[in-house]
């Protein structure tokens, strides 16, 4: 008395039609076309620049350690459907505020660095929460809003550290402050925490001829682990659902706004820590400019690694940092060698960074529009 059992044979079998054999390789090639293109560019650049391999490898190790954390901090918002978090700049500012505080207090070394990481948390959580609130009001245009929010926050940041410090915020530290007693100096020396993390572990262990910041890589590794663990948790699953379709997530009882808020807060906190790692490596920072390019360079690196606005993995981030910074190192010299003008290489570099973001954004918008159109027709 039961109704017939439904098997794939009783329905027109469209499943196989949609994934014809052999498309797997095509898909991988399609997804990897951007990294492959940039790998070729790097290759050409390396040959043209004719740098000593030793210098190049050393430089790349340093830059991987310096930038990977920042780029990895972009992944979670992509999963939650917020696109590329241009608001990462705000995280960077929180990190810098923490650095200014520990420098003022005169605490250095690894304890100083860890204290800065701790101090940056309340700042970045608060600012991340505010960012999330703003982005939740601008659904569908999160990226441009986050981008402008970065500029806006920069204005407030400058207001605080250039005008309010020494006037409304009592502070007296001739080393850090301008001679007028109002506002901070343009550059702040970070001797106290210089390479505090880089040199924290196995300082004497070298990899062949190269000095490796083991502790920094350990931290980056931990972040990778955390990210991949996070995507397998309930919260991570909710973020993926929200990222794919806010409406369906909402109907399934997921609190969409709250989920997006958490994604942005996590990203902002990680961004703050990423900036700390970045600056302890450089050893000095430009009070009013260091954070400005952070968003753009990190995003360009992530995209060069093969990520898109709706999909990003740890491997995209790491590969992207590798390729982008190789290009960064070699392009001025390559420009010099090929065209005789060193600036060409530098401009070419920023052209690539801007261009890759423009192309990714355009491709993504184009594809999602096509998808919407075919959905309407289908």
């Amino acid at each position, binding site marked *: *008395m*039961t*109704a*017939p*059992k*439904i*098997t*794939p044979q*009783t*329905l*027109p*079998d*469209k*499943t196989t039609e*949609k*994934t014809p054999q052999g498309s797997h390789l095509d898909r991988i090639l399609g997804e990897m076309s951007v990294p492959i293109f940039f790998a070729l560019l790097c290759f050409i650049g390396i040959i043209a620049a004719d740098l000593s391999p030793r210098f190049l490898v050393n430089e790349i190790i340093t830059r991987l350690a310096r930038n990977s954390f920042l780029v990895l901090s972009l992944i979670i918002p992509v999963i939650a459907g917020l696109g590329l978090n241009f608001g990462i700049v705000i995280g960077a500012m929180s990190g810098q505020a923490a650095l200014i505080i520990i420098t003022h207090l005169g605490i250095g070394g690894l304890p100083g660095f860890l204290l800065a990481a701790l101090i940056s948390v309340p700042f970045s959580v608060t600012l991340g929460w505010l960012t999330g609130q703003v982005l939740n009001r601008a659904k569908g245009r999160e990226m441009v809003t986050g981008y402008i929010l970065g500029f806006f926050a920069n204005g407030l940041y400058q207001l605080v550290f250039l005008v309010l410090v020494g006037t409304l915020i009592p502070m007296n530290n001739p080393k850090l402050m301008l001679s007028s007693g109002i506002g901070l100096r343009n550059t702040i020396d970070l001797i106290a925490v210089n390479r505090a993390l880089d040199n924290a572990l196995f300082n004497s262990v070298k990899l062949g001829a190269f000095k490796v910041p083991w502790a920094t890589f350990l931290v980056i590794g931990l972040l990778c682990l955390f990210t991949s*663990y*996070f995507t*397998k*948790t*309930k*919260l991570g*699953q*909710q973020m*993926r*659902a929200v990222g*794919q*379709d806010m409406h*369906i*997530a909402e*109907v*399934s*009882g*997921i609190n969409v706004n709250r989920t997006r808020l958490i994604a942005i807060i996590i990203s902002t906190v990680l961004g703050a820590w990423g900036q700390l790692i970045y600056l302890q490596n450089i050893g000095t920072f430009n009070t009013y400019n260091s954070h400005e390019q952070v968003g753009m360079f990190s995003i360009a690196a992530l995209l060069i690694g093969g990520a898109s606005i709706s999909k990003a993995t740890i491997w995209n981030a790491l590969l992207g940092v590798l390729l982008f910074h190789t290009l960064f190192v070699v392009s001025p010299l390559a420009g010099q060698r090929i065209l005789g003008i060193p600036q060409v290489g530098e401009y070419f570099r920023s052209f690539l960074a801007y261009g890759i973001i423009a192309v990714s954004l355009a491709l993504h918008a184009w594809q999602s529009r096509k998808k919407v159109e075919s959905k*309407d*027709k289908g």
Partner: protein
Amino acid sequence: MSSPVFPSLWRPLWRHNYLPRGVLQLPESTVLELKNITKSYFGVTVLKGINLSVKPGEIHAIVGENGAGKSTLMNLIFGMPVIHETGGFEGDILMDGQPVKISSPRQAMELGIGMVHQEFMLIPGFTITENIKLNREITKPNLASKVLGSGLETLDFPAMRKDSRQALEKLGLAIDESTFVSRLPVGYMQFVEIAREIDKKNARLIVFDEPTAVLAESEADQLIAAMKRLAEQGIAILFITHRLDEVMACSDTISILRDGELVKTLTRNETSVGEIAELMVGRKLERSPLPGRATEPSDEDLILELKDFRVEMPGERVRGLNLKVRRGEILGIGGLAGQGKVGIANGVMGLYPASGHVIKDGVELRLNDPKAALEAKMAFVSEDRRGVGLLLDESIAVNIVLTSIETQNKFLRWTILPGVRLLDQKAVHDYTLKIIKDLDIRCTGPNQPVRRLSGGNQQKVCLARAFSLHPEILWVSEPTRGIDIGAKQLVLDLLVQFNRKYGMTIIMTSSELNELRRICDRIALVYKGKVAGILKPDASDRDFGLMIAGKQLAKEVG
């Protein structure tokens, strides 16, 4: 009971899927009982004293025309916010004989009510398992979750897969539960939705909201079979549909809604498609005689002919329709939602991709080009008044004249600059004043933004816009939707006036058969994207009902 009442109407496919379920042996207890439910939106009563009960394992079909109150009833059962935001309802909902309060979809789910939506609520980039378990994931605690909260518990994929497997098997669906939904054919997606509902451990009642609307016929058959399997396992099913043959194929009980009232509840073996159709449509018709014409329209003098006409309008596809329109008539186009009646005007006017032939006065019209349609002296008043018909933040004047400016270069004056013409504001003002008076548009003046007007007056602005083009054919879609009763009559009168006084041929699409029967000369009924037949307005309710449900009749007109 195993012998169907209308054997000839059954599609062959039903035969081997339809298995008689024996003599009804439904238990006496009820899962859900509605008592005297009344609901009104802003003073308009949409549900009046509904009484309904569903027993475990019963398939209970709810049929009715558009606007009969089906979706309101479902929203009410599922606790949708829209009900409570508009002041709640009167009457009682009982589950297992106990009164319950359902104030959110979440509560409904907790009570064991599931809903299979008309549009798929599935995430394409997730696997079947992930979709079935969406926001009900099975998790395992870990170190981080103990410190930071349950949100960080890890997902237990093997357990989730096992559950999904079980749910799919209950439906008799042999498909790998880790397949991505994006790779599934449309027919499968509905099953995943159902699997999600039955995976909810306490599922007792599942509401199917027009589940077959997007399915192909064979897929619909599979769905019906699955519904029966569920019913056999004791789950009660509320089945909302337009398709009467599906109702006859699977339901135990049939309730007919009409104008917010439950007209009748029948058992399947006591009734017929014809009776249901009659009950769906039937209502008193007030048809006052219309003014006559010098020469009545006839097939001798056609103004427009559609041949093998197809329109790709989502949800309202037209699939190879043929239609002849007589010069000077008011032709009605009726039919249920989703059958394609709305697509016809939109396709002819170039707003949705169309193919086939449209011949006006012997000349073939260029399709997919709104300008060509306008230049062929046709005008269109869209069913989507606010979306297509109006510039809400612009003035009445701009709304009325803009199309005339763009297509006919009216209301422009030459300037001293050679070749440059500017808006003639005085002419616009004078003209708008006149038409406001003629059509009796209630407003503060030509410069009032149309957003501030009432629905009826907005509709008059739309009519004025179309009228200003002096069309030979006026297409009007759902002219009375969303406007109050007094204004409805005015709009209909206006259409008759356009037709009789200016000789405009009017093609009016409407979901309300009554208003079509009030002013039309002939009414074409559309079913599955084609004309099922053409009836005189004074044909019987039963004929209208059957034809709406796609049954061919012997005695048609023209």
